[in-house]
């Protein structure tokens, strides 16, 4: 362990600016931590030589006075972002051997800002999962453990589980994630870090391996709200290569952290208090409400009446889009090929060998709900309910500025729990999916520990393209929570 790996991203940046450390020093310290924490299986591909070469170039830029906003800061990239010349797997066997000839816009933006990538981070296969257990490269492990049973391995959440584990274990200062139904926020909550899924359209999807295109959105995962604000500023921006990227100026997110939330109205949705919500989750939520009140904000009870339909809506819309997006894996242009007597047989054999069980299940469901005779009953119906869910939020935001909810219904669970039924696993995302369907920004920050010593997260949801208010409120909550605990051994 080195002191340098315990700096926040903002602190490391400030030291670099003052010349108190160098990009090479920071990068070396983090590479050592990546090696020390390899048992967490957070990385699929490590790129230390590349990182050190980039760090030297970064130090040279700083001497010349041309350093960017994230120059010299070691980060990790979820292995769903295509990276030029660096193997990209989506944690699937079907992309075996794929080395992209181009760079995703978001990882390219980070590079342009000077960030140093230490490699590609583990995830659920094609980002489909809430535990990181569907990865073809084995699960990433949560650096946190239960007080009652420190030997039991826990999941880091998913799908951005490698990203969350790497940030929590101080292997990187920040990491990219992607979020389709909670894949940034739920792992952030499980690993005691902060992550934000920005508004749909804020970050370009170009070069991100597609799962469900109307929902997928990239965002930062880091240890503080300020770190996420800095990183989102570098990732976001209009990109003509993504037709749903929005042509809006990227605000100075860091400047939004004024600490002043007096008079802000914070919505507390009644529907997020289902029967059987654990007392621990409910308590941490109450604490969050109290912190905001103390800071001069006003909690307001609101209704989001279609909340209970978000999960079934998502599990029609997302697999439908996935079945269409994943049709491109044909064993022909890239990835793994299994020979067949005919073209169709080659497709079917390659896809059977390449896709894991959860991905297959979702492709099959998606294929079914889009098939002739069932399209209206399932897909069109789900799209209509999606509009009602989005409308619930629109109406709520006529009276409130931000919404506060728990991030997940439980703390991190064991590697061997929640395995029997896919629907039980999906319930992890019950609080994050509605935001995704409505395309709104959602941030998770650590708010406390469970009785067994595991992090619990709270979620802040904002108006479209109002990440600034989300950051501002999150900054106040972060100070009140005082959560600076590291997992054992980190």
């Amino acid at each position: 362990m080195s002191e340098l790996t315990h700096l926040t991203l903002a602190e490391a940046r400030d030291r670099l600016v003052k010349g108190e450390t160098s990009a090479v020093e920071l990068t070396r310290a983090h590479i050592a931590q990546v090696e020390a924490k390899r048992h967490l299986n957070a990385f699929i591909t490590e790129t230390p030589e590349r990182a050190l070469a980039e760090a030297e170039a970064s130090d040279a830029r700083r001497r010349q006075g041309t350093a960017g906003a994230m120059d010299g800061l070691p980060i990790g990239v979820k292995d769903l972002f295509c990276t030029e010349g660096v193997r990209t797997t989506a944690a699937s066997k079907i992309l075996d051997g794929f080395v992209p000839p181009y760079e995703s816009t978001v990882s390219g933006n980070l590079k342009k800002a000077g960030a140093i990538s230490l490699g590609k981070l583990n995830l659920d296969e094609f980002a489909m999962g809430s535990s990181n257990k569907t990865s073809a490269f084995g699960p990433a492990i949560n650096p946190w453990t239960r007080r009652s049973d420190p030997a039991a391995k826990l999941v880091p959440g998913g799908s951005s589980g490698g990203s969350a584990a790497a940030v929590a274990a101080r292997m990187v200062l920040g990491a990219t994630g992607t979020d389709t139904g909670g894949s940034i926020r739920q792992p952030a909550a499980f690993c005691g870090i902060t992550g934000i899924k920005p508004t749909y359209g804020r970050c370009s999807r170009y070069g991100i391996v597609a799962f469900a295109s109307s929902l997928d959105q990239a965002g930062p995962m880091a240890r503080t709200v300020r770190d996420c604000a800095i990183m989102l500023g570098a990732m976001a921006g209009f990109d003509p290569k993504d037709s749903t990227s929005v042509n809006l100026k990227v605000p100075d997110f860091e400047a939004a952290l004024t600490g002043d939330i007096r008079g802000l109205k914070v919505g507390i949705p009644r529907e997020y208090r289902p029967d059987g919500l654990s007392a621990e989750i409910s308590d941490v939520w109450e604490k969050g409400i109290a912190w905001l009140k103390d800071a001069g904000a006003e909690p307001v009870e609101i209704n989001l009446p279609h909340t209970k339909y978000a999960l079934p809506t998502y599990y029609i819309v997302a697999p439908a889009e996935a079945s269409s997006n994943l049709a491109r894996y044909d064993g022909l242009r890239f990835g793994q090929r299994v020979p067949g007597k005919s073209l169709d047989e080659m497709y079917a054999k390659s896809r059977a060998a390449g896709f894991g069980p959860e991905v297959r299940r979702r492709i099959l469901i998606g294929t079914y709900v889009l098939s002739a005779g069932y399209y209206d009953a399932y897909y069109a119906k789900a799209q209509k309910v999606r509009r009602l869910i989005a409308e619930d939020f629109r109406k709520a935001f006529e009276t409130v500025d931000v919404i506060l909810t728990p991030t997940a219904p439980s703390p991190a669970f064991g590697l061997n729990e929640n395995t029997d039924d896919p629907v039980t696993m999906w319930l992890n995302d019950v609080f994050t999916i509605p935001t995704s369907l409505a395309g709104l920004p959602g941030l998770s920050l650590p708010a406390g520990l469970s009785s067994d010593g595991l992090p619990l997260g709270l979620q802040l949801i904002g108006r479209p393209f109002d990440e600034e208010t989300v950051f501002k409120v999150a900054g106040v909550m972060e100070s009140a929570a005082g959560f600076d605990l590291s997992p054992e051994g980190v």
Partner: protein
Amino acid sequence: MSLDISAVRAIATLARIELGEEELAPLAGELSNILNFVEQLSEVNTDGIEPMSSVADLGLPMRADLVTDGDIAEQILANAPEAAEGFFTVPKVVE
């Protein structure tokens, strides 16, 4: 809604995923559970509601219809499992 083995076989054919006979019954069970779970949407009144295909209700942007790249066949074929003479190769499709 429950799916039987022959329905699963038909869906798998549409999805171009080869399934072994022994995989069909468990999948029929799993997929039926999922369909039963999403069935609850039928209780929502959606009369007169427009389906929402995207949250970005901004319309699709237009761009000039110009060639912006090309001559990168080598790059495109670099990841092909099998390629020859500047082409992807496939099993014979015409006898």
